[in-house]
């Protein structure tokens, strides 16, 4: 399959007409498309004036840049792999140089716009930009392409075995590394915003992987179980435990964690039961509907959940009974350490690491049990499963329940870490992000899901840190604004680049004599 595809690509490469004329026509088409897309929505920004009436602000500069980018993308399609890299690098450098030369002027949306003659100067940007980009293209065209035929990337066995172990070691040492490099004040951000945040998504990804990757049931409402876990812990720890057995206070997290997991699993069965007959996209939409219903109920059932205002003052987890505070019974005093909020952050990191590893361990183990094999069989062919006597109802429900249980664990950890939850944290977007992580990682692949979570969540979190971008795009530029925009774009680009996800080979759980990897192209996930 892979070679056939490669062969077809090579054939189309030979057939492709790369004469300058066609290239320029193609680029002109791309630029014209960009113009047509940009004219209404990019060029004219609606804004309210002093008397609250809507007015239009023209931004010719921005449109000129968009058209130049369209032209560049059109040219880029006619370059080989190496040429593309060289071309993109050259265009990036040229853009940076222009920006530096232009200096800080009146900027709108990060682009310098000369207010005196906006149309004229933008026309200048357009002409100069098009000429420069074309010149750079001609330079990149002369880069010799490697003639070696591209073969599928072969991962050496040593990397396959040691990669995950080294990764695990790095994860375990992560808080210490952060402490070493960022100091005690700076490291909270790195451990909390990056470490814990990414670990939560790795855990959610692994949990959803059971449902989507192993059992092949497409679930777009996974966030519902995350919400159930979070609200279960929040309500139990703020209202139930203080009113019944207050002595249990410090242990609240550890008592509620299993309860939250069980509750979420019950919801998994409850929501899973009616949708047993559905497959593929229909299942996805119904689970989406369930996720939204739960969120809307959380918003509107104010007596129970406090609605939009959410629940605050949720007790934070203790170190097995020793709270993380400056008191005499606190963790720091008991162990003779100086009190710092860092202790709790590091502890939380290890808790979520342990929970995530538990998820992973359970998944890997379950895959070898009859139930795990039944999940994978169900994913491949439901009818064959049924005719072989597998109880598909139970198989599907266990997948839903176990996936939901891990979602519930992650949810109650989330509530404990935040100390405050509201329905805002459980929107459809979260479900989409988790599903994207699973699919982009390569469904069914534990390592792939972890890599995708690090890349997508770490990448978007990193955007918060990119203040240096302001030196390029001007002070109005706010990189955090572009987080979700780039996230969506990355989803599309990654899917087109690798439709089967980053790691698309499967290690078979059963094999005869020799262990052969199965290409993801042969596996039928998502067919429900």
């Amino acid at each position, binding site marked *: 399959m892979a070679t056939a595809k490669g062969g077809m690509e090579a054939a189309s490469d030979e057939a492709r007409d790369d004469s300058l004329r066609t290239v320029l026509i193609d680029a002109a088409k791309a630029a014209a498309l960009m113009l047509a897309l940009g004219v209404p*929505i990019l060029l*004219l920004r*609606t804004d309210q004036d002093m008397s609250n009436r809507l007015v239009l602000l023209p931004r010719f500069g921005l449109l000129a840049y968009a058209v130049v980018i369209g032209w560049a993308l059109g040219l880029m399609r006619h370059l080989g792999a190496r040429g593309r890299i060289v071309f993109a690098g050259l265009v990036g450098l040229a853009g940076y140089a222009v920006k530096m030369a232009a200096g800080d002027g009146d900027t709108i949306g990060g682009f310098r716009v000369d207010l005196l003659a906006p149309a004229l100067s933008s026309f200048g940007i357009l002409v100069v930009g098009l000429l420069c980009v074309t010149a750079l293209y001609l330079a990149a065209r002369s880069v010799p392409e490697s003639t070696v035929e591209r073969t599928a990337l072969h991962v050496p066995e040593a990397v396959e075995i040691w990669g995950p172990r080294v990764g695990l070691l790095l994860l375990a040492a992560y808080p210490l590394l952060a402490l070493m490099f960022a100091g005690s004040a700076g490291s909270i951000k790195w451990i909390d915003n990056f470490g814990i945040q990414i670990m939560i998504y790795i855990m959610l990804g692994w949990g959803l992987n059971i449902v989507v990757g192993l059992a092949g049931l497409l679930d777009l409402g996974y966030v519902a179980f995350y919400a159930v876990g979070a609200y279960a812990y929040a309500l139990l720890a703020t209202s139930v435990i203080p009113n019944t057995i207050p002595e249990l206070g410090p242990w609240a997290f550890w008592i509620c964690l299993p309860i939250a997991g069980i509750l979420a699993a019950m919801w998994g069965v409850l929501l899973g039961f009616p*949708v047993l007959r559905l497959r593929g*996209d229909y299942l996805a939409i119904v689970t989406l509907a369930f996720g939204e219903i739960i969120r809307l109920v959380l918003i509107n059932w104010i007596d129970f959940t406090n609605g939009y205002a959410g629940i605050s003052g949720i007790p934070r987890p203790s170190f097995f009974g020793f709270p993380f505070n400056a008191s005499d019974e606190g963790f720091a005093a008991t162990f003779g350490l100086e009190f710092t909020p860092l202790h709790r952050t590091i502890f939380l990191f290890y808790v979520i690491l342990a929970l995530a590893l538990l998820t992973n361990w359970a998944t890997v183990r379950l895959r070898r049990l009859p139930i795990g094999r039944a999940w994978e069989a169900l994913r491949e062919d439901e009818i064959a499963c049924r005719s072989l006597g597998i109880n598909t109802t139970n198989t599907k429900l266990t997948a839903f329940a176990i996936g939901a249980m891990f979602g519930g664990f992650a949810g109650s950890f989330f509530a404990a870490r935040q100390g405050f939850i509201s329905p805002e944290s459980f929107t459809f977007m979260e479900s989409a992000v988790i*599903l994207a992580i699973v699919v982009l990682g390569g469904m069914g692949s534990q390592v792939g899901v972890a890599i995708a979570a690090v890349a997508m969540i770490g990448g978007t979190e990193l955007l918060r840190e990119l203040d240096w971008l302001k030196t390029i795009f001007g002070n109005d530029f706010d990189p955090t604004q572009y987080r979700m925009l780039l996230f*969506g774009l990355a989803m599309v680009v990654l899917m087109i680049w690798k439709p089967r996800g980053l790691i698309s080979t499967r290690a078979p759980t059963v094999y005869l004599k020799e262990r052969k990897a199965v290409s993801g192209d042969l596996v039928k996930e998502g067919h429900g």
Partner: protein
Amino acid sequence: MEYFVQQLINGITLGSIYGLIAIGYTMVFGIIGMVNFAHGDVFMLSTFIALIVLLLLGSLVTAGGAMIALALLVVLIASMLLTSVWSWAIERIAYRPLRGSFRLAPLISAIGMSIFLMNFVQVVQGPRNKPVPTLIDGGFCIAGQSTPQKTCLIASDGFGINLAYKQIVIVLVTIVLLAAFWYLVQRTSLGRAQRACEQDSKMARLMGIDVDRTVSVTFVMGAALAAVAGLLYMLQYNVVSFSDGFVPGVKAFTAAVLGGIGSLPGAVLGGLIIGLIESLWSAYFSIDYKDVAAFSILAITLIFLPSGLLGKPEVEKV
């Protein structure tokens, strides 16, 4: 009784808008079997395009009378064209490379596109809600107490029934465009190609139909109808926001599923039913839970009637 009739009128207005969006979902699903998740956001984009074109025509709009009708026509056509270009580009860039790939890939790509479009509009147009000036004011009073300012057809002391001019415009525009669209699909070679691809795209290709082009045309038609819905939505609610794509999108999808996905009359029927249920639910039960009602209908339909009201039952082949 009067209250009920009033809600019926509101429900039909809302339902027309949902029906127009639902056609985009149902056609795309029928032809390539994918849920075009970004369709709701294309609809949202079209409301912005309509607003911008409307503001460009600024002075024409304030002139009043026939000029408003002319302005609206210009806005409608411009917005249909520009939204179609967006939808065409989205299909070309994000979906076509994934055709023939495994089934989840286009869905994930569409979700990514939906996230992108929403945030793109937020970044380039700003996160605040945009208040739209009222264009079509006033209406008929069908029942109620006559006052010097207005005369009512039926004198009554009850709640009264009002039929706003904009509601008439919404329903009329919907009917006219649906008729045009129906003609396009049933009577032209383009529509025939489309129906052929829907039945069996491989066979259609063997018969010399350009399937890629037909799919592109389907996306363009869906977007054009979504643009009509966008303009009508703007007229009805007088506000435009970057986050307005998701919920109407899901409701329109519900309408498509309820009517039987793949069926064009089904999409319109489903839209009307969803619109009616939503307005009656808000009127008689709880307005807070109106979205819960819509989502519940979606779940219940899919569970008990997966092929919808007018859809063909799917036969599972081994």
